[in-house]
C-alpha cells in the first residue's frame, strides 16, 4: 500500500511537469495552429532563468585570504556575495537560498518577452505554411537555443537546490496513519505539484473569466468570425504565445531543483509532452492537463516492482502503449475537438 501511495505521489509530480508543458503546447496549437517543437527549449530556458537568478543573487566581491591557499598554492581568493554584504550573513544567505522560488520574478518578464519575440520575429511567418515546415523551423530554433545555452553555461548539469526548508523529505505517511518514516516524499516535489495546480488554475481562470480570455476562446472556436467583428485576434494570439512561454518557463524554473538544469533537458520532455497532447486531444486544454496527470500516474504505477516482475521494462513504454490504444479507439484523443488536424 505504501508503495502505491509513493508511486501515486510520484505520478502526480511527473504529471505536473507533463501537464504544464502540454498546456503551453496546446495553447499555441489551439490559438495559432502552430506545432511548436521549440516548446521544450522554453521549458529549458525557464530552468536557466532560475540558474541566472541564483547567479545574480550570488554575485560576489573578492578578497584575498593570506591564511589559506588555492589548488596552486597561491593565496585564496574568497568570494563574498554582495547580498550578504548588504543584508548581513543570515538574511543575505536566505535570499540566495530562496533564489529558485524568487526566480519567478525573472521568469515572467523574460519568458513573456521571449515568447513575443519568437512569435513576432519568426513563428508568424509560418502560420500559413504546412505543419511539416512549422515543425522544422521550431525544431531548428530549439537546437539553436540549446547550443546558445550550452555555449554560456557548459554541458554539465548545474546544481540549483531548493531552499533548505524545502530540500528534505516530508513524512506523508504520518498524515495517512502509517508508521513514522514509512512514506517520505521530497517536499519540493509536493510543492511542485501544488504549484502546477495553481498555474493551471490561473490559466483556466484567465481564459474563462476575463474578457481577453473570452475573446481568445472565441477566436479558437471561430477565428474568422471574431476577425469580422473587428477584433485584432492575431495580437491576442501573440499574447497567448507569450503566456504559453511563461507557463513553460515557470514549469522549467520550478523543476530546476528536481533535475539540475542542463541544455538538453527540454528535448527530454518534448516528445513525451507531444504524446500527452495527442492523447489529451489536439487543441484541448482540459485534455492536455488530464492526459498529463493520467500518463504521469500510469508511468509511475508501471514502475512498481510487482508490475515490472510481470511485464519487465513496461515503465519505459507504457505511455506509448496508451497513446497507441487511444489513437486506435479515439483518434481525436480523450477530449479532442472535431476538425483539428483532420483536414
Amino acid at each position, binding site marked *: 500500500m*505504501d*508503495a502505491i501511495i*509513493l*508511486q501515486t505521489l*510520484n505520478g502526480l*509530480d*511527473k504529471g505536473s511537469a507533463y501537464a504544464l508543458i502540454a498546456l503551453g503546447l496546446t495553447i499555441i496549437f489551439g490559438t495559432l495552429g502552430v506545432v511548436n517543437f521549440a516548446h521544450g527549449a522554453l521549458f529549458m530556458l525557464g530552468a536557466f532563468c532560475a540558474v541566472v537568478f541564483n547567479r545574480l543573487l550570488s554575485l560576489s566581491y573578492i578578497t584575498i585570504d593570506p591564511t*589559506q591557499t*588555492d*589548488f*596552486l598554492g597561491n593565496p*585564496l581568493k574568497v568570494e563574498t556575495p554582495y547580498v550578504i554584504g548588504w543584508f548581513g550573513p543570515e538574511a543575505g544567505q536566505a535570499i540566495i537560498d530562496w533564489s529558485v522560488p524568487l526566480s519567478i520574478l525573472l521568469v515572467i518578464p523574460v519568458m513573456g518577452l521571449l515568447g513575443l519575440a519568437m512569435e513576432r520575429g519568426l513563428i508568424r511567418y509560418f502560420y500559413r505554411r504546412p505543419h511539416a515546415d512549422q515543425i522544422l523551423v521550431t525544431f531548428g530554433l530549439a537546437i539553436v537555443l540549446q547550443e546558445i545555452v*550550452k555555449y554560456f553555461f*557548459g*554541458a*554539465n*548539469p*548545474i*546544481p540549483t*537546490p*531548493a531552499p533548505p526548508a524545502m*530540500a*528534505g*523529505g516530508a513524512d506523508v505517511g504520518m498524515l495517512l496513519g502509517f508508521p513514522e*518514516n514509512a512514506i*517520505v*516524499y*521530497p517536499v*519540493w*516535489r509536493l510543492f511542485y505539484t501544488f504549484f502546477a495546480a495553481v498555474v493551471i488554475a490561473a490559466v483556466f481562470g484567465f481564459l474563462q473569466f476575463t474578457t481577453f480570455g473570452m475573446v481568445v476562446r472565441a477566436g479558437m472556436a471561430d477565428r474568422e468570425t471574431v476577425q469580422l467583428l473587428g477584433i485584432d485576434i492575431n495580437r491576442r494570439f501573440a499574447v497567448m504565445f507569450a503566456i504559453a512561454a511563461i507557463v513553460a518557463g515557470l514549469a522549467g524554473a520550478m523543476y530546476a*531543483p*528536481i*533535475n*539540475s538544469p*542542463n541544455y*538538453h*533537458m527540454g528535448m*527530454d520532455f518534448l516528445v513525451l509532452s507531444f504524446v500527452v497532447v495527442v492523447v489529451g486531444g489536439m487543441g484541448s486544454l482540459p485534455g492536455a492537463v488530464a492526459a498529463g496527470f493520467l500518463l504521469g500516474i500510469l*508511468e*509511475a504505477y508501471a*514502475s*512498481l*516492482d510487482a508490475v515490472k516482475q510481470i511485464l519487465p521494462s513496461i*515503465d*519505459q513504454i507504457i505511455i506509448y502503449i496508451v497513446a497507441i490504444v487511444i489513437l486506435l479507439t479515439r483518434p481525436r484523443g480523450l477530449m479532442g475537438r472535431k476538425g483539428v488536424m483532420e483536414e
Partner: protein
Amino acid sequence: MSNSKFTRRGVLRTGAATGAGLALPTIFTSSAAAFTNEPKGPNVVFGFNVPQTGPYAEEGLDELRAQQLAVEHINGEGDGGALNTFSSKALQGNGLLGKKVTYVTGDTQTKSDAARASAKSMIEKDGAIMINGGSSSGVAVAVQALCQEAGVIFMAGLTHANDTTGKDKRRHGFRHFFNAYMSGAALAPVLAKAYGTDRRAYHLTADYNWGWTQEASIKAATEALGWETVATVRTPLTATDFSSYLAPVLNSGADVLVLNHYGGNMVNSLTQAVQFGMRDKIVNGKQFEIVVPLYSELMAEGAGSAVQGVYGSMNWNWQLSDEGTKAFVKSFGEKYGRPPSNSAQTCYAQVILYADAVARAGSFHPCAVIEALEGFEFDGLGNGPTLYRADDHQCFKDVLVVKGKENPKNQYDILEIVEKTPVEQVWYEPDHPMFAGGELGPCNPGE
C-alpha cells in the same frame, strides 16, 4: 567503310599497357608505405576523439585541454609538465623523431557510430597515426575495433567497463584508466569498514555495457564481504527523472543504494535520492547510505552538496601529493585556471605514453609502438609506479577511494581521498572470469 588504323587487338594491347602504366605508381606507393599514415612530412598527426557535444561534453572539453597540453610539452613548449617527472627520458621536448606533433579533433557525441565516423575521418582524411580520447566504454570499444582494422594505435581515454580490456580487447588498444573490477576491489573493503559487513544493497544501474560490468563487479566484491544484494534494477541511459526507480528502494528493505550511474545520470539519481530523504533514513537499525562507485570531479561538481559523505573510487585526483601529479596540476592549472579532472589526466598520460613509446621504439610503426608499450613499467605521470600489462593492455597502479567532502572550502574542494588502495589489492589475472573471452589478435600495420 572506315579508314581507321585502330584494330580491336591494338586497342586492347594499348589499354592493357596504359592500365599497367597507371597502376605502377600505386604499386610503388603501396609497397613504399610500410604502415597506415606513415608520417612523410615534417609533422605527425594525432587524432583527439572526445565528446564535444552531448551529455559528456564537459568531460570531453577537459580531455581536450589535457591533450593540447601534452602536445605542447612533447613539442617543447610550456613548462614541460609531467615530462619533467616521467621516469622514461626518451622524450626530449623537441617533437617526435624529428617531427612536430600536430593534432586534429573529432566529436564522439558519446555515440558509438558518431565516434567511429569521426575516428575514421581523422585516420583516412587527416592522416592521424594515433587516436586518443573518449568518455564512454561503448565508444571506446567501437573505436578500438576500428583502430585495429585501420592499423593505427588507440590510446583510450575514460573507459571503465571491464570489457575494454576484457572480451573486447584489441592488440592496437591500450587503457591507462582503471576498470570496474578494480573499483569493486578497492571500494568494498572501505565500505565494509565504514558501514559493516551486514548490509543489504540495492543497485540502480545504467543499462549499457559499462553499467552491467560495474554492477557485476561491485556486487561480487561486496557480497564477498558479506553484503546481500536485494535487487539490481536497470535504468535507461536517457533517464533524467529517477523518482520512479527510487521510490521502490524505500520499501525494499535495503539499507545501501549503489548508483552504477555516470555523468548526468549520476548527478540526477544522486541528487534525487538525497531529496527522497535517503541519507536521513534509518533502515534495519542502520543509517541508510548511498555509494557511487565511479566518481568524476566534474560530475561531483554537478551534484553539489548531494555528494557529501558519499563514497566512490577514482583513477586519479589532483590532490595527490606525488611529484608527477604536482607537475601536471601546476602546468594545467596555470594554463586553464582550474585543476584537471581524472579524465583529463588519463588522456594527458596516454598521449605522453604513446609519444614515449614511439621515441623508445625509434619508429612510428604500430607494431614497434605496441611492442614498446606492452609490459612497459613507468612512474612520474601521477599514479605512482604503473605497469602496462602485455596480456591485455590494461594499466595496473594504485586506485583511489574517495568521499564527498563534508565542508568544502571552494568549488574544487569537493572530494577527499580516503584511501590509496595498493595495486596488489586490485590485481587480477588475465583469465579472470570477468575479463574472459576475446583475444588481442595480431598487430596490423594496415595499408
